[in-house]
């Protein structure tokens, strides 16, 4: 998941006071189109730049349905998962929640989400990209509707690559080989996040490994591929091909990249705005460098979930349908360059002209799906601790891998 939503602050200037101001008639009479009424409270977790757009989009729903009031609330991404859980257990939850892909199974398993199969919320569901759709499934039912999708990619500084005479590397081996060339140019090839395990996933997938095998109910992070991934990460640091920190990783990564202290970093579409601001024309984006076995980056993104206890279920379904509709997605993509989740939206000329979308779409197509299990989010904390232990020298790579594996077996009872 995107633990660092990056770019700018979470809070934007948002007045709520969303009062429906229906102008065009037909209220008061159960019309054939089923007049909707009620209030849809929508918790959004997007960052500052995104929030303005999402709020405008959400509130435009009121124009289509004058009887419905949309109450847009932006909550911090940091503790959004916990806050929703607190609220949902206390019957105080919003009607619609922007749900990270790894949260869906968690919320659904606790009974907090409304099963959406055969409701108005699902519209033209075959149009959704398969990989985005997969994260909405749990226990044979559909619990959410995809909003945006994303993955990680390699961001590079073209000027520094030119100076070092290096092409964008296709593999981590190439990165290491280029270390000397970059050193001559007075820079380090790569920044590696040491404080956020999401950024570790490309190394893991690159060695052909995974955190767990959900189907076989098996922990795989400490198998040979997992150990190789830890070694790969440590190797990059030891060889001087990469720098890292176990604190302030986001800040240091962005400033090192902006200052030219590093030539490349791995990041997601949410960092495009900041990186462009820093590098301008010099910013290039390429697929995540491959490891020893494969090239892989984790699939991320967001969905809409409907609270199981919503008093205005019909309005909420209709709201989700509207938010996930092709036109709305096109609008969001045009304004924010976020990746839509509907195949048809990619056909739209406006979207086809979007450079970032055109780059990230192929990357998303091959992105590595994560296990959509309730514990998906919980897998990160033990991993973070192990990576920090390895990077600070208190654990060897294989120890880090086996510590993580042990923690997972505690977490996932009965898994082998």
């Amino acid at each position, binding site marked *: 998941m995107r*633990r*660092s*939503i*990056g770019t*700018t*602050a*979470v*809070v*934007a*200037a*948002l*007045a*709520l006071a969303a009062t429906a101001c229906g102008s065009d008639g037909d209220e008061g009479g159960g019309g054939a189109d089923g007049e909707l009424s009620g209030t849809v409270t929508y*918790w959004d977790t997007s*960052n500052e730049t995104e929030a303005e757009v999402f709020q405008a989009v959400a509130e435009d729903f009121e124009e289509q349905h004058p009887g419905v009031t949309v*109450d847009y*609330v*932006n*909550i*911090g*991404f*940091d*503790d959004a998962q916990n*806050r929703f859980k*607190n*609220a949902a*257990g*206390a*019957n*105080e939850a919003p009607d619609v929640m922007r749900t990270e892909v790894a949260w869906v199974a968690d919320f659904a398993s606790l009974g907090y989400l409304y099963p959406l199969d055969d409701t108005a919320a699902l519209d033209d569901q075959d149009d959704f990209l398969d990989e985005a759709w997969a994260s909405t499934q749990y226990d044979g039912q559909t619990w959410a509707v995809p909003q945006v999708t994303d993955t990680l990619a390699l961001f590079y500084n073209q000027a520094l690559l030119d100076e070092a005479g290096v092409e964008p590397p296709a593999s981590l081996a190439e990165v290491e080989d280029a270390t000397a060339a970059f050193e001559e140019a007075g820079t380090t090839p790569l920044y590696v996040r040491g404080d956020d395990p999401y950024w570790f996933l490309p190394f893991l997938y690159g060695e052909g490994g995974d955190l767990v095998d959900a189907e076989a109910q098996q922990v795989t992070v400490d198998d040979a591929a997992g150990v190789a991934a830890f070694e790969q990460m440590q190797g990059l640091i030891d060889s001087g091909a990469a720098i890292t920190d176990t604190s302030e990783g*986001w*800040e240091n990564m*962005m*400033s090192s990249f*902006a200052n030219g202290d590093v030539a490349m970093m791995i990041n997601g579409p949410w960092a495009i705005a900041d990186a462009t601001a820093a590098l301008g024309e010099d910013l290039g984006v390429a697929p995540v460098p491959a490891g020893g076995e494969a090239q892989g980056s984790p699939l991320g993104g967001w969905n809409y979930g409907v609270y199981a206890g919503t008093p205005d279920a019909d309005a909420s379904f209709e709201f989700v349908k509207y938010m996930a509709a092709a036109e709305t997605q096109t609008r969001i993509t045009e304004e924010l360059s976020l990746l839509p989740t509907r195949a048809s939206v990619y056909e739209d000329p406006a979207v086809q002209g979007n450079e970032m979308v055109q780059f990230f779409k192929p990357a998303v197509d091959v992105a590595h799906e994560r296990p959509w299990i309730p514990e998906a989010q919980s897998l990160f904390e033990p991993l973070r601790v192990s990576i920090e232990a390895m990077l600070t020298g208190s654990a060897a790579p294989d120890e880090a891998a086996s510590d993580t594996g042990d923690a997972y077996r505690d977490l996932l009872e009965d898994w082998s």
Partner: protein
Amino acid sequence: MATHTTPRNGHEPEGTAPPVRPTPEAVPGGGLVGTGRARRVRRRGERSRAASIGLHATLLVAALIAVFPPFWLLVTSFKPKADTFTRSLVSNFTLDNYDHVINDTEFLTWFGNSVLIVVITTVIGVFISSTTGYALSRFRFPGMRPLLWTLLITQMFPMAVLIVPLYNLMARYGLLNQPTGLIVTYLTIAVPFCAWMMKGFFDTVPVSIDESGRVDGLTPFGTFWRLIMPLARPGLAVTGFYTFVTAWAEVAYATAFMTGEQNLTLAGGLQTFVNQHTQDWHLMTAAAVLIAVPATLVFGYAQRHLQSGLTAGATKS
């Protein structure tokens, strides 16, 4: 009780003598330099030049360390984002950060919420910790020792663990998104310490005052309210300040119990600039300065009393 009858000697110019004498006029401001003390200082104060330099050097270093982090925040708040981590004091001076924080966020709403919550919390907190402190100081009643212990133990609570049960409690009684919920919570954080301290403070007020009140036919409440409270100003100042700071700067409960920007307090709202996953140090610093300024003003007002009030409270606890 050991120092109960010991005359106090807090005669420094800015400090305030705890009101051991039943003359309310002697309490605020002080301004009197005790002769005994002055004599002592002169006699003891025959410092060598080297000692004097050492004294100033040490204090200067300590003061610099104390002031530097807030000072650096202030300095950084006037730098644009790209220069946040530069070492120079001034680089591309700008007020944009403040402009953004004040104009592009719900700053005024948060400020209003904070003031409302903090003022009510402080008023109620000071009042009930005074009555409790007074009761503990003057009366001996069943439940007194358990109460003293409860006040102490209450401060031992790992609040991080309490937050979910409290959330459920608030939800059950419809107090989420209500100032009342936060006020009540802040009271439980601030009042135990304050009551403990007020007890100690009242212990330093001679019982003869209570007796004179009773002779005049006042009820215990009347005595407390008309005679004792006016003498308790330093203690009230500490209590008030402590409650104020607690409520003003609290973040965890504010963000947990309040959803929606229009309900947040200042610290809760501005905390969104400084969370784990953003790098908006430039906005954060401006926000931090804006939070700190009112707190510092209240502090500047209360600090004259802090010393005597806190000491009296702590001595007698």
